[in-house]
C-alpha cells in the first residue's frame, strides 16, 4: 500500500551523532540497545500500530477539548487513549483497511482536529511512546503542525526493525522526562534518544532511575505498553418536534415532562446531577427562545426540575408559537461531590433546610436570579461601600460584632440604607423632609474613599422628622454643603 500523504522520515542512521562503535564485549556490558546502528535488512511488521495526535497549540488545550477530540476519534478505532494535557493515542492497526491505510486514517484524524480548530502533529509508530515522541518532536524535525485535513503530514515508522534507528536523533525532551533528569543526562553529553540507548543498562538505571529505563524499554517495544482506554463522558440532549404549534405555558410543560423524565433516568443511572439545563423552544423563521436554568446545587430529580423549569417558563414571553423543543444538559456533575458545598451537615435545623436550595431556585426562577441574594459586610468606612450582595449560600457566621446586649439597639448606623442618597430641601441651613428635621447628637465625620473615584466627605447626623421617623442624613463637607437622606433607623 502506498501512503500518499505519509512522509517517510528523513532519518538515516548516519544522521545520528558520532557513530557508536561497539565497545569490546568484555567492557560493554549490557547496553540499553546494542543493535543501534546495525543496518537490518529484514522488515519486521509490528503487532500494533499507534497514531499519536499531539495538539501543537502554544498553550495546552482544555481537558474538555481533549475529551471532545477523544470522543470523535472513537469513530476511527475503539482503542483511544488520552495523554493529557495535549496528546491523544489511537491504536489503528485494525482500522487501517477501513480508512485507506495510514494516510487515509491520518487525514480523517487531522480533519477532526481542524474541525475543532486545533492544529496538530501526527505520527505513527509501532509503540505508543514512539509515536508520541515522534509527534512531539515533529516541529524539531522540520514538520509544521497541520491545520487542515489535507495538509496533514505524518511522521511514520511502520517497520519495527527501523524503530530504534529512526528514534535515535530525537531529543530526549520528547519523552517528557523530569527536567532534572534531562539536565543530568545533558551533563554527560546525552541529549538524544539514540545517545541514551547506547548507555549500559545497569549503569543507566542506577544513575537515572528504573522508571526511565522502563520508559526506554516501552519506547522501543522491549516491553509492552498498556494504555487506559478513553470513555466518553456524556451529556443529555433530546429534542421533540411538535405536531401542533403551542403557545400555552402549561401545554409546553406537558410536552417537556417526558423529556425531563428521560433526563431524570439518565442522571439517576449515572449517579450524576446537572448544574445547568437549557430548554430551547423553536419557532418558525426566528431564532429559538432559550431558557437556561442555573442551579445552585446539582439536581437529578425530574419533578424538581420540572417545577423549576415551569416557574421559569411562566416568566417567559414567547415571541411566536413553539414548533419544537429541545432539552440540553450542561456537564454532568457528581452529586455526592457537589452537594457538600452548599449545606454543611449539622449547620441547619431539621430536614426542612434540605429544601432551601430548591426554595432559592424556585424564587429565582420566578423573580429572576438577581432578586434573591444574601448580604456580606465589607470593611469600608463609606456606607455605600460597606456591604455587598452575595450568593445566598449558607456559611457559618463570623464572630459577633458590635454589642449584642445593648438595651436599645440603635447603633450608629441605620438598618435601612437608601440605594442612592436622596437630596433634601433645606431652610436656614437645616434639612427638611415632611417639615423641618430635628438633628440629634453630633456629627460623625466620614471622609475617605479617594482611591477608587468615589471619595466622600460628609458629616452624618441622626435626625427625626415630624412624624417621629428617625433618619440618617448627611451634609456635604464641600460646597455647596447640600443635605442628603441616606438611611432610616427602622
Amino acid at each position: 500500500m502506498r501512503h500518499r500523504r505519509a512522509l517517510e522520515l528523513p532519518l538515516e542512521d548516519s544522521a545520528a551523532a558520532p557513530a557508536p562503535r561497539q565497545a569490546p564485549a568484555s567492557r560493554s556490558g549490557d547496553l540499553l540497545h546494542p543493535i543501534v546502528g546495525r543496518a537490518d535488512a529484514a522488515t519486521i511488521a509490528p503487532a500494533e500500530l499507534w497514531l499519536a495526535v499531539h495538539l501543537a497549540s502554544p498553550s495546552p488545550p482544555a481537558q474538555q477539548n481533549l475529551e471532545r477530540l477523544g470522543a470523535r476519534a472513537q469513530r476511527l478505532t475503539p482503542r483511544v487513549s488520552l495523554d493529557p494535557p495535549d496528546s491523544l493515542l489511537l491504536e489503528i492497526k485494525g482500522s487501517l483497511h477501513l480508512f485507506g491505510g495510514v494516510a487515509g486514517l491520518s487525514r480523517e484524524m487531522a480533519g477532526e482536529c481542524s474541525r475543532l480548530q486545533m492544529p496538530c502533529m501526527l505520527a505513527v509508530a509501532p509503540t505508543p511512546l514512539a509515536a508520541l515522541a515522534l509527534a512531539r518532536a515533529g516541529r524539531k524535525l522540520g514538520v509544521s503542525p497541520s491545520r487542515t485535513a489535507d495538509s496533514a503530514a505524518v511522521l511514520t515508522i511502520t517497520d519495527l526493525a527501523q524503530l530504534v534507528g529512526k528514534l535515535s536523533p530525537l531529543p530526549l525532551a520528547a519523552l517528557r522526562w523530569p527536567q532534572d533528569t534531562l539536565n543530568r543526562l545533558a551533563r554527560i553529553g546525552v541529549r538524544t534518544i539514540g545517545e541514551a540507548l547506547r548507555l549500559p543498562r545497569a549503569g543507566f538505571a542506577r544513575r537515572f532511575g528504573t522508571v526511565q529505563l522502563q520508559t526506554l524499554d516501552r519506547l522501543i517495544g522491549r516491553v509492552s505498553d498498556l494504555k487506559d482506554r478513553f470513555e466518553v463522558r456524556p451529556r443529555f440532549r433530546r429534542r421533540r418536534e411538535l405536531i401542533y404549534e403551542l403557545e400555552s405555558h402549561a401545554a409546553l410543560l406537558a410536552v417537556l415532562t417526558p423529556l425531563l423524565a428521560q433526563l431524570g433516568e439518565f442522571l439517576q443511572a449515572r449517579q450524576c446531577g446537572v448544574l445547568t439545563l437549557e430548554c430551547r423552544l423553536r419557532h418558525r423563521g426566528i431564532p429559538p427562545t432559550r431558557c437556561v436554568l442555573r442551579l445552585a446545587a446539582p439536581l437529578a430529580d425530574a419533578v424538581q426540575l420540572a417545577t423549576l423549569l415551569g416557574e421559569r417558563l411562566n416568566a417567559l414571553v414567547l415571541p411566536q408559537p413553539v414548533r419544537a423543543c429541545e432539552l440540553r444538559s450542561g456537564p454532568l456533575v457528581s452529586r455526592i461531590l457537589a452537594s457538600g458545598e452548599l449545606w454543611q451537615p449539622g449547620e441547619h435545623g431539621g430536614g426542612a433546610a434540605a429544601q432551601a436550595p430548591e426554595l432559592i431556585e424556585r424564587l429565582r426562577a420566578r423573580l429572576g436570579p438577581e432578586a434573591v441574594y444574601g448580604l456580606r459586610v465589607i470593611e469600608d468606612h463609606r456606607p455605600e461601600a460597606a456591604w455587598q450582595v452575595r450568593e445566598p449560600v449558607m456559611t457559618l457566621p463570623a464572630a459577633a460584632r458590635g454589642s449584642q446586649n445593648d438595651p436599645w439597639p440603635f447603633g450608629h448606623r441605620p438598618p435601612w440604607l437608601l440605594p442612592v442618597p436622596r437630596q433634601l430641601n433645606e431652610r436656614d441651613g437645616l434639612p427638611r423632609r415632611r417639615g423641618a428635621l430635628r438633628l440629634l447628637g453630633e456629627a460623625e465625620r466620614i471622609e475617605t474613599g479617594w482611591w477608587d473615584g468615589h471619595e466622600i466627605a460628609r458629616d452624618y447626623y441622626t435626625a427625626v422628622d415630624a412624624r417621629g421617623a428617625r433618619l440618617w442624613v448627611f451634609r456635604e463637607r464641600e460646597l455647596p454643603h447640600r443635605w442628603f437622606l441616606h438611611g432610616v433607623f427602622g
Partner: protein
Amino acid sequence: MARDLSRLLEHPAIWRGRSAARTRTLSTGFPALDEGLPGGGWPHTGLIEILPSCFGVGELSLLLPALAAMTRRPEARWCAWVAPPLQPFAPALAECGVAPERILVVNARRKDAKGKSALWAFEQMLRSGACDIALAWLRNALPRQIRRLHLAAEQGATLGVLFRPRETARESSPAALRIAVEPAAPGVRVTLLKSRGGARSAIELPAR
C-alpha cells in the same frame, strides 16, 4: 429519656401544633415588652403583624435583638426579608449582632400588581421550612391571604412578621399577634392590638 424527648420537642423545626397549651416564645430583648406579650416573648411560629405609625419610627428595632439571638444559633436557618422597602444595611445589622450570613433578601417585582409576587414569595419562604423567621413588607394583604400565610408559617415552623401601614389596623386579621408602633420620645410606644392571651395595652420602650 423524658428529658431527651422534651429537648427534642424544643427543637424549633418541630411543629407542635396550635393546640399546644403553651406556645414557645423567644425573648424580644426588651423586658417590658416580654412582659406584655403572651408567653413572654415573640412566638416561634405563626404570623404576627407590626403596624408602625410611619416607616422608620423604630418598628424594625423591636425585632433586632431577637434576630441577633436567632441568627447566632449554630443551627440557625435563614432570616428572610421579603420585599423590603429599602436596602437592609448589613453593617448596621451586624453591629446589632445579627449574622449577615443568615440574611436572605428577596426583592419582589416593583411593578407587580397588588404585590402578587411578594405575597407568593413570602408564602414560599414561610412554608419551605428553610427559615427561622421571614419578614415581609406588604401593603395589600387580604384576610384570607393572611390566613394562608399563617398556616404556611406554622407548616414551615417559621415566624412570619408582616409589616403593614398603621391604617390597616382597621382591617381584621387572622394574625396571632398585632402590634402598633409609634414614636414616643425618646423611644417607642408599642400597643398590642391583638394577642392571644395577652393584654391589650401600651408599653413604652425608652431609648438609651
